[in-house]
């Protein structure tokens, strides 16, 4: 009986969480469209999200490209298909691995940061103070952050994709004596807009999810220092989970549109 009650409670809480998140997203769209616009804060957040994450994304992307190529090489050699390496790596990185890895890294770095930052602001009642002073805290703190992640993540994905392809080309160049020019020629021959456009569109959604979950968790942080830690932690977990869900939906939808 107790178990049934607890499952019921959990389902109830889960649905309530989704509902609140949806309402939060709706509020974001309302607030972001309405002036005054906080451009300076938006640019500052863009810098925080974009430039500050770039190094991490570049290093991770490079290693992913390197490892993916090194790991697939023996199998492809076994099948005599090592010349298809640029096609395979190019398509898998641009379509899936690049956006997902970049988004996951940003979820870890940005969503947790936002959760902690807004959470501590909530705990220290800075948000309440802003409301009193007449500044719209949602517009200033939340809308700018979500917009920043939404705009910056696709660019980070482009950098991540490129550096991953470069890492893969480096391995092919060193191990298979494939010139960089041939490698990238083959990659771009293998790619089509059906690969690039859905991946880019998907990245906007990834960015939106990261910003949304990070700010939501921070904005509605429970009181106390433990609440800040919990907000940061759940922000990462839920953002990562939602990323995969959005990824699934995006692939599903792009399959319908691009018939690939």
């Amino acid at each position, binding site marked *: 009986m107790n178990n049934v009650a607890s499952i019921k409670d959990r389902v109830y809480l889960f649905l309530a969480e989704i509902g609140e998140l949806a309402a939060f997203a709706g509020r974001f769209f309302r607030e972001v469209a309405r002036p005054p616009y906080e451009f300076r804060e938006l640019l*500052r957040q863009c810098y925080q999200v974009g430039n500050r994450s770039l190094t991490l994304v570049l290093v991770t992307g490079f290693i992913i490209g390197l490892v993916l190529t090194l790991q697939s090489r023996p199998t492809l050699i076994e099948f005599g298909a090592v010349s298809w390496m640029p096609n395979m790596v190019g398509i898998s990185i641009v379509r899936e691995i690049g956006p997902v890895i970049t988004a996951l890294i940003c979820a870890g770095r940005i969503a947790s940061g936002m959760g902690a930052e807004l959470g501590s602001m909530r705990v220290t009642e800075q948000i309440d103070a802003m409301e009193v002073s007449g500044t719209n805290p949602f517009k200033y703190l939340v809308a700018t952050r979500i917009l920043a992640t939404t705009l910056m993540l696709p*660019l980070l994905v*482009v*950098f991540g994709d490129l550096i991953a392809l470069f890492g893969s080309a480096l391995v092919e160049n060193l191990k298979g004596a494939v010139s960089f020019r041939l490698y990238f020629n083959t990659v*771009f021959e293998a790619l089509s807009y059906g690969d690039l456009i859905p991946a880019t569109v998907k990245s906007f959604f990834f960015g939106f999810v990261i910003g949304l979950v990070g700010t939501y968790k921070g904005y509605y942080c429970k009181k106390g220092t433990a609440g800040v830690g919990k907000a940061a932690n759940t922000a990462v977990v839920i953002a990562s989970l939602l990323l995969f869900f959005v990824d699934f939906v995006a692939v599903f939808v792009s399959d319908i549109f691009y018939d690939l």
Partner: protein
Amino acid sequence: MGTPKLSFVKLGLFVVTGSVLLILAAYLIGSEQKMFSRTFELTTVFNNVGGLQVGNNVRYAGINAGTVRAITMETDTTIRVYMRIDTELQSHIKKDALAMVGSDGLVGSMLINIIPGNGPAQPVDSGDEIRSFSRISTQDMLTTLNVTNENAALLTADLLTITQSIRTGSGVLGKLLNDSTLARDLQESVRNLKLTTAQSNEALTRLNRKISELRFEDSALALLLDDPEFSEQIRSLVSGLDSSGQDIRRLTRRLDGLAGSLEAGEGTLGVLLRDSTAARNLQSSLQHLDSGLQKFDQNMEALKHNWLTRGYFRKLERQQQ
């Protein structure tokens, strides 16, 4: 806030670089599909496109010339394929070019190969339809391969029998391979043949040299071969020889007859030859004649000294002097 100005510059750099890279990637992908180069359109009609898709490559003589723009079902058996081709190649593709559905390697995607025609023809215009050639399908190829395989199996079985019989040493080939004596003989023969050839070669060379050394113009051979007068003479000589021969033959025949009669003992000579009694008689007659003649000589000598006839003899001597 820190130094907002510098961070904004960095952000600008980040955004511009990212956007440029994204646009560049889009451009490179598009240019591979001939989206940004000037293109013209060609069409062709197939019965079966074998899984060809919009966006697949079109190759002309092996180089990437464009992409498939659209594939439409025209009637229930014909499929029209619209191709976007690079304008740079328009002057090279002639109206008699052939379009063929192929694949990029064994596992590659489908593509259209345009093969140059054989004869001289006008370059294609935009919107032209070029001829198509339906390549044999994989199924047909496998059927042919199956027949080939069966034949190959029969052939290898035959080959096996042949090689086995060779190995066991039966037949000429087997002997040749296994019999060392035969091999040695053959080797010897070949060596002799080589020697003979060398010698005859040498002889021929020498003969050649001799012939070249001959002064043909002044030789009897030249006379024989070239002078018509001489040939006439030779001819008459030969005909004379011929008649002489006939005469000789006649004479011989007569002599033959004579000899035959002699043999048979006919006539005086025959008797003489065959009859030994007659010969002996003749011999004694001759002996008597001989002694008779001696006596006659003595009588003549006596006559010379006879005073009655001495004068006559002296007159004879004087006349002789």
